[in-house]
């Protein structure tokens, strides 16, 4: 929305077209200066109207900014209500005092800001002479004095990000905790001791799934080698393993 154009509705509008304000303090200062309102006698209703107008003109209601205006409006109301009460004693500060101080301080800030703007204007076109020199290091060197914690923190972030790019996380391989060879020997031992070994109950009660899988492979391996037999009465029933009497060919087991 063009800030110079006010709404088309017929509601009465303040006579002044408000310039863009930096916030409630700025607006208040503007009213005091432009409308020649006494800094000690700020018309609360008028200011609140102006605050409302400033908020209305925001293209989108920014809650934070609205909050800032509200805080000042509330403060003005507080000052007004206090000034209506009789002061208890001489030591009581004038409730307007702090606001006046804030306005005076802010006015100084604005004056310094326009002073700086003037200085910058004089500097347009003043560019550093920088002739090439074979000895001169590249521009990436920083003036130590000007390096702050922000630069430090950013440098760390950059290093860590680069490191991560160059060292993508490796595929997670579980360490081999159980070998088939080991399980074959272990299982054959159990079969020979028990003579009729309940394979399923054993496999299904292992705490580690990888161990269960290894055990099953070991059992199949024992059947293939002919060192054990498997019996099952019905589907899903217990599988019993019994020794055939053929010795385990230890040297052919491999290391898997």
């Amino acid at each position, binding site marked *: 929305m063009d800030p110079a154009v006010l709404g088309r509705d017929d509601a009465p509008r303040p006579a002044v077209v408000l310039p863009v304000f930096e916030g409630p303090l700025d607006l208040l200062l503007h009213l005091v200066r432009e409308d020649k309102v006494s800094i000690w006698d700020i018309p609360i209703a008028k200011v609140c109207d102006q605050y409302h107008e400033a908020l209305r003109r925001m293209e989108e209601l920014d809650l934070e900014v609205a909050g800032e205006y509200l805080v000042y409006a509330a403060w003005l109301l507080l000052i007004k209500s206090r000034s209506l009460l009789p002061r208890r004693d001489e030591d009581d500060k004038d409730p307007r005092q702090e606001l006046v101080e804030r306005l005076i301080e802010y006015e100084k*800030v604005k004056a310094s800001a326009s002073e700086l703007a003037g200085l910058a204007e004089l500097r347009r*076109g*003043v560019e550093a*002479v920088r002739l090439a020199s074979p000895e001169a290091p590249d521009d990436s060197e920083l003036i130590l004095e000007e390096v702050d914690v922000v630069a430090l923190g950013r440098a760390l972030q950059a290093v860590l990000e680069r490191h991560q790019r160059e060292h993508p996380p490796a595929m997670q391989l579980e360490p081999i905790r159980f070998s088939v060879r080991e399980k074959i020997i272990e299982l054959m031992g159990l079969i020979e001791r028990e003579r009729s070994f309940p394979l399923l109950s054993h496999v299904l009660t292992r705490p580690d799934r990888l161990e269960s899988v290894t055990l099953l492979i070991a059992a199949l391996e024992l059947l293939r080698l002919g060192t054990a037999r498997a019996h099952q009465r019905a589907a899903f029933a217990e599988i019993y393993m019994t020794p055939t009497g053929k010795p385990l060919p230890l040297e052919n087991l491999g290391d898997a």
Partner: protein
Amino acid sequence: MPELHELAAMAEAILAVAGEPVTLEALLAGAGEGVERERMEQALELVKQRHDQPGSGLLLERVGGGFRLATRPEHEPAVRTFLGYRSKARLSQAGLETLAIVAYRQPITLPEVNFLRGVNSAAVVRTLIERKLIVVAGRKQVVGTPLLYRTSREFLVHFGLPDLSALPTPEEVAQVAGEGASAP
């Protein structure tokens, strides 16, 4: 012992390569032993005078705690056309106010800036950091240990100030502002 104009030439060569303010100490270091401060200052005065003659496109300025060789402002259109940059973005009102607060009250925290301006200035402070006009000067030892900000050397260069003491005093500023206000 070099002649004064030789010393001036040497100082000019150093300044031309430096590309930024050079302290008197650094110039003396470059010149080698046996050159006194006063003599170096005389040599710099000579450099300055030479560039203040018509025909020079440069000037010697005292800025950012040192001496700097820079282009004369009147050549801004030509330099800009040549470098092809868009005219450097001027600082916004919010930027100038925040910078003024930091400049005069440094080191200062964000909550203090917010208090003085009556609005949250976090985004403005971020921009000023991006533009290298302010830097973090540590932490304030109060609840929440907020970061403290100060103006940088780039700030001095940007505004053409030799050092912070060259900032116009608040009284001087008030006077200028007062004059402005009384104008019709």
